[in-house]
């Protein structure tokens, strides 16, 4: 099946449209079945994916608006493959765990449309098609936050929409300028990223374009100081919204850095290493401190997720195979772990309708299974060795050490600070005596919740111990990306900084 990517993108769309006909009572099962099929299709994609081929695979190219250079152009490589699979997985598990009854049909259909947009973003190789999915993903999310969220939901959803929309419009101008440059050099219009890769731009153009794309991506990530929409969005969103937001939507920004900023503007990227590293450090330390100060469990996780995104961005700009591969692996692990944590918060919110730590205490004795899984995910989030969180974080720090030991040490505090706020949260929520009467009769995880959470636990362990099957295809594609960047870079500084690897063992 060479056109499996089209099927992956449009299957949820068609399922969503047909879903309008499905009866309200059966829609949940319908949605879950569709998500299962989509997940199986994504696994099929993995099984037919050639891990040794670092280039684009399953490429599809259909001219859409040839006079303007817009093609329907899809492809997947090691960088995007696992993000697609994670998207399908998290949508499936999130859907299983849904406990909302009100307007469930609209929720399920929005999720299916959202899944289409998310998969589309990660497999598009045409800038306009990418932008199309990128922007379209805002609409279902706006609805999910706005319709099923907390008391401030409308404010939060509009803030989310407007922030990201503004950033992406600036990015769109950048894309149009890029296409114009390509046209003035080659004579034909093209928005294909692979065509753009061939374009060697003067450094000052690179810097401007880098900034235009950066605004689009940084707001999505969200990087400091554009992160203020995220706590609102997470705070107000229903569980499923937070899961998708943290696991997938935020990854679009960091994925954009890898797919667009690095290979298109290698010199500008190198020049921007230090400014971006500074912002990342601020994200890591400042938001970790903010997380510590929160009273609301969900807000702790929301801020911790911003903090970890800082590590991911840092790794992307390490400009070597360890850093970039590590950051992509960290995207996956962050998706799984933060998704799981939001699911867990959802579990407790469903039972008590509060997320304040002060309301809890001693839950470990009432809900042992819940406490075990929560503790487990917490360890993975902090980055304990032999969990999925460790692999990525370690690689990122290793990669950046080469550039700046001081920044790396500062970034390394993420593990310490993470441990501080996470363990505090765990202590206040799970340990000690059960002080609140209402907590004494809470039920432990039910079957539905176990089905959603146990696979994530298994993945956390599996990839923590043996990340090779995932890491290897990522590494192959990242290395070819870096080789390409090094060749394309013009300034001596960039040539020096972009390295395949600095550990002698792999340098060959």
């Amino acid at each position, binding site marked *: 099946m060479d056109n499996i990517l089209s099927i992956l993108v449009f299957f949820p769309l068609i399922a969503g449209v047909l879903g309008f006909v499905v009866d309200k009572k059966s829609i949940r099962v319908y949605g879950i079945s569709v998500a299962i099929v989509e997940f199986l299709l994504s696994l099929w994609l993995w099984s037919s994916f050639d891990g040794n081929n670092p280039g684009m695979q399953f490429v599809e190219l259909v001219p*859409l*608006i*040839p*006079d*303007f250079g817009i093609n329907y152009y899809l492809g997947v490589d090691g960088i995007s493959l696992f993000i697609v699979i994670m998207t399908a997985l998290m949508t499936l598990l999130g859907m299983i765990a849904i406990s909302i009854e009100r307007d469930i049909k*609209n929720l399920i259909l929005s999720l299916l449309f959202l899944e289409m947009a998310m998969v589309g973003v990660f497999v598009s190789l045409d800038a*306009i098609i990418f*932008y*199309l999915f990128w*922007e*379209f993903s*805002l*609409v279902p999310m*706006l*609805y999910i936050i*706005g*319709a099923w969220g907390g008391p401030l*939901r*409308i404010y939060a*959803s*509009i803030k989310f*929409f*407007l922030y990201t*929309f*503004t950033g992406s*419009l*600036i990015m*769109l*101008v950048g894309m*149009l*300028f890029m*296409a*114009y440059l390509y*046209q003035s050099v080659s004579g034909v219009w093209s928005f294909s990223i692979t065509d753009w890769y061939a374009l060697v731009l003067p450094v000052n153009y690179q810097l401007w374009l880098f900034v235009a794309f950066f605004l689009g991506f940084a707001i999505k990530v969200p990087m400091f100081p554009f992160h203020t929409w995220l706590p609102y969005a997470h705070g107000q969103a229903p569980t499923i919204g937070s899961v998708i937001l943290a696991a997938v939507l935020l990854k679009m920004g960091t994925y954009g850095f890898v797919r667009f900023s690095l290979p298109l503007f290698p010199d500008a990227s190198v020049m921007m290493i230090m400014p971006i590293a500074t912002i990342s450090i601020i994200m890591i330390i400042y938001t970790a401190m903010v997380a510590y100060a929160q009273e609301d469990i969900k807000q702790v996780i929301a801020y911790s997720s911003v903090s970890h995104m800082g590590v991911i961005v840092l790794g992307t700009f390490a400009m070597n195979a360890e850093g970039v591969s590590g950051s992509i692996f960290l995207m996956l692990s962050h998706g799984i772990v933060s998704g799981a944590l939001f699911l867990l918060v959802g579990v407790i919110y469903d039972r008590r309708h509060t997320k304040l730590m002060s309301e809890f205490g001693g839950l470990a004795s009432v809900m042992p299974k819940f406490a075990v899984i929560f503790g487990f995910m917490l360890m993975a989030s902090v980055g304990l060795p032999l969990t999925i969180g460790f692999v990525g974080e370690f690689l990122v720090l290793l990669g950046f050490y080469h550039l700046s030991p001081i920044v790396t040490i500062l970034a390394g505090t993420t593990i310490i600070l993470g441990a501080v706020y996470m363990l505090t949260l765990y202590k206040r929520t799970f340990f000690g005596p059960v002080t609140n009467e209402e907590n004494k009769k809470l039920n432990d995880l039910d079957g539905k919740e176990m089905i959603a959470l146990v696979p994530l636990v298994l993945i956390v362990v599996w990839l923590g111990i043996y990340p090779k099957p995932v890491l290897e295809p990522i590494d192959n594609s990242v290395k070819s990306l870096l080789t390409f960047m090094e060749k394309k870079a013009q300034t001596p500084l960039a040539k020096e900084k972009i390295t395949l690897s600095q550990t002698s063992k792999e340098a060959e």
Partner: protein
Amino acid sequence: MLEPISVSLASLNLGTLSPMLITIVGGLIILLIDLIKGDLHKSLYVMFTILILFVAVGSVLGLNVNERGFFDVILIDGISIISQLLVLLASMLFIPLALTSKRFHEYSYPEYFALFLFMIAGFQFMVASDNLILIFVGIETASLSLYTLIALHNRDDSYEAAVKYFTMGAMAAGFYAMGSAVIYALTGSVELYQIANVLQSRTAESGVMIAILGGAVLLLAAFAFKLSLFPFHTWTPDVYEGASAPLAGYMSVVPKLAAFVVAMRIFGMYIDLEVEWVRNAILALAVLTMTLANMMALAQEDVKRMLAYSSISHAGFIMAALALDTTKGNTAIFLYYALFMFTNLGAFTMLWISRHKNKVYHSRYDHPFAKFAGFVKIMPLGAVIMAIFMLSLAGVPPFSVFWGKIYIMSAAVDAGYIWLAVVMGLNSAIAAYYYLKLVVYMFLKSPNENDGTVVYNLTKPLMTIVGIAAAITVGSVFIVQPLISYFFYMVSASGY
């Protein structure tokens, strides 16, 4: 003694006049039918009008590019053909909206349909000539018919709207006449191509620049009225509010498109003459128009007024493309209107569907936002379609207006105006807020604020029109390519 003029019928090339003649004759036939038998149902006139428009479309398609006719005052070039096609197409979409389930005053008169056809003939004359006098006649024919169509809605605020529009239109006509007079004084001609030649040879003369600028300013003011550009835009929301919803939607597309074609001819000439001042003035007007109209739209409480301001802002967008004076920029104008037409007409039709005879939801407004609260619970499909129109207007891909937007922004980038593209981007972001406001009301609020009879005026013809508009808005990605290649060919064939 004057030489007798001998004119052969062949040299008149009457074929170039055929589209206008068809609409005029169609209007006369409607009047005749009314004369012979008075008590006929409006559906007859609606369908007959559509048929007339079909014939007119056919005759436009039969025209050859770059022909002159009728003493050389009619100019059939590429842009006149595509603009006539767009005008006729928009009119065909508009006129079935008369078939409402409730009886509205204006449609009970056959004269409405006759006037409508005369108005279209006026627009056709406007776009198919480069003779300043014939353009003036076209503008006035169309405008006078339009004032009457607005007033026929027969409510206090529609009289107010018609009078307001009439006063403003008369002022614009005055400015236009004065501007043309200045140009005539300078060049001794009212034909744009001759004017361009004479001006070209005289630009070096000392002192002539002031006269050129004077003429340009007067004409710019005239068109700023017609195109509702800042600071001459203040009539727009009131007039749209007073007019019936479909007519307001129609006014936001067709008269402006016709005026843009004329503006393209006149101001394109100035920019070609390298009168940079005109270009800068147009750019400034465009930026101010889109920004200030957006700001005003944020504060509106009525959906129709919001859409009025939004259409002002869109006009600013398009005006910016005009200032570029590149083939791509001019193509973008037509592409934008071709796509905007369906979305905007669809959005106004949704208002029309929800229109009650009296103002039941608000003492002042027909369509307050609160009326649409929880629309998704009352009529899910209607709410989804309205949301698609709003998102499309906001420029969310893949809906239609997005493609027009990126094409205009791309034209700006190509012409070296990157700051303009950034301003457009930021304006789109501001605009997203007020479009989302309606989406939020429809989807995220509970329907306790209305009595559940939002879809008051719904009939099958209206559903068909909304369906067509929605289908094209959603599937626009597939029609953009043929549109771009056709428009680009036509625009470059006429030398713009």
